[in-house]
């Protein structure tokens, strides 16, 4: 049995959950894939030991019946932690940030108000940044590998959407050091995988570097030891 801290109305409350033999957390995914990288970055920040269980995405292992038992949509990542099996990268990072609130980097802030602002920018990442970033990186990096012709219309419209989103970020980051406030949080961390794809692998770095505050923010968050470790996985 392990005792945990979790927050209720900003206070820490102790609780005991059943897990007799503590196992290393299993992260099912692939080292190059963005969504598992989001989770790995969080686990490194929280000093949670884990093992990457490789899923061969190009062979379609994630669509096989055994894997669909773990994830009904057949995607990575999936986490197995004692008797808890669950998926969705942003649900996973929230869970570990909350479960190990007092360990490693604090990623959710000290108060409910901090948390609310972080959640707001996590939503912005999920609903405005993610889709065009994913589409753009996919078209540039993977379409050909998967035998498809890159879709120039998607490339163009995704870049237009990202331009607008990053203008909003530039404004925000001219007033606060990080998206969620004055400290690094899940709101920033959640951007690392796709921003990395765009800047380092897709030749779209200018979207970030042309904006002074966004550029400084990227230099800062991408040089964190946790992210460097993710890239070495």
């Amino acid at each position, binding site marked *: 049995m392990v005792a*945990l801290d*979790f*927050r*209720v*109305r*900003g206070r820490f409350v102790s*609780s005991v*959950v059943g897990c007799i033999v503590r196992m290393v957390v299993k992260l099912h995914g692939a080292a190059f894939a963005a969504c598992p990288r989001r989770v790995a970055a969080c686990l490194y920040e929280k000093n949670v030991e884990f093992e990457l269980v490789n899923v061969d995405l190009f062979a379609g292992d994630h669509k096989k019946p055994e894997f669909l038992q773990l994830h*009904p*949509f057949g995607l990575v990542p999936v986490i197995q932690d004692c008797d*808890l099996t*669950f*998926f*969705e990268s*942003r*649900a*996973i990072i*929230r*869970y570990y940030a*909350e*479960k190990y609130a007092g360990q490693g980097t604090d990623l959710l802030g000290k108060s*409910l*108000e901090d*948390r*609310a*602002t972080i*959640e*707001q920018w*996590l*939503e*912005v990442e*999920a*609903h405005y940044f993610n*889709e065009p970033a994913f589409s753009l990186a996919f078209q540039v990096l993977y379409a050909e590998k998967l035998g498809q012709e890159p879709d120039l219309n998607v490339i163009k419209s995704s870049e237009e959407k990202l331009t607008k989103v990053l203008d909003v970020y530039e404004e925000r980051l001219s007033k606060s050091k990080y998206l969620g406030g004055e400290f690094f949080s899940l709101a920033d961390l959640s951007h690392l995988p796709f921003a990395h794809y765009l800047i380092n692998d897709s030749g779209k770095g200018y979207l970030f570097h042309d904006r002074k505050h966004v550029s400084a923010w990227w230099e800062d968050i991408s040089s964190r030891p946790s992210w460097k470790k993710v890239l070495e996985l």
Partner: protein
Amino acid sequence: MAIKLHGSWMSTATLRVGATLYEKGLDFELVPPFGQVPAFEDGDLKLFESRAITKYIAYKYKEQGTELVGANFSEMPIIGVWMEVEAHHFAGPSTKLVWELCIKPMIGIPVDETVVEEATGKLNGVLDVYEARLAKNKYLGGDEFSLADLHHLPNIRYILMTPKASLFTSHPHVSRWWSDISSRPAWTKAAALSDAAIPKQA
């Protein structure tokens, strides 16, 4: 200080936040929108993004009204998963259908049938996963109603007004779940306000 919600009862995002406030039995004032809808003010705190607002309300007023984020730590990750499923799998295609089949006809823009068919196919696949989940669980997060269910209410309400209602009625456990969650007093109240706000066709 009073809670202020900037928005309109017709908007799905406002409905999402309004239903949460009613579940918590909180008083609030609905004020005309500015900028991002909905925007929310509680004392000095200002927020946008409906799903960030509902979570804040659920944590801040945890000991009041309906428990919406899980009474104990073991339920929380699973509720979290299904909130993300709503945001990343359900919201995309369902919002497209609401836009194409409800909003476009209302403002007189022609419907894009290709978009409708693609969104219908995607949403049907997502609802197959829900059907399996709800065959074994009363609610998406488990035995209790939570934000994971509530976040779905506004889009389903609008799609049920269209010919694509069959997406839901053809999934028996999804239908059973909808009947349950849509008959909650808090939702009934928000939906009635939304009905009153929708312009009646001449």
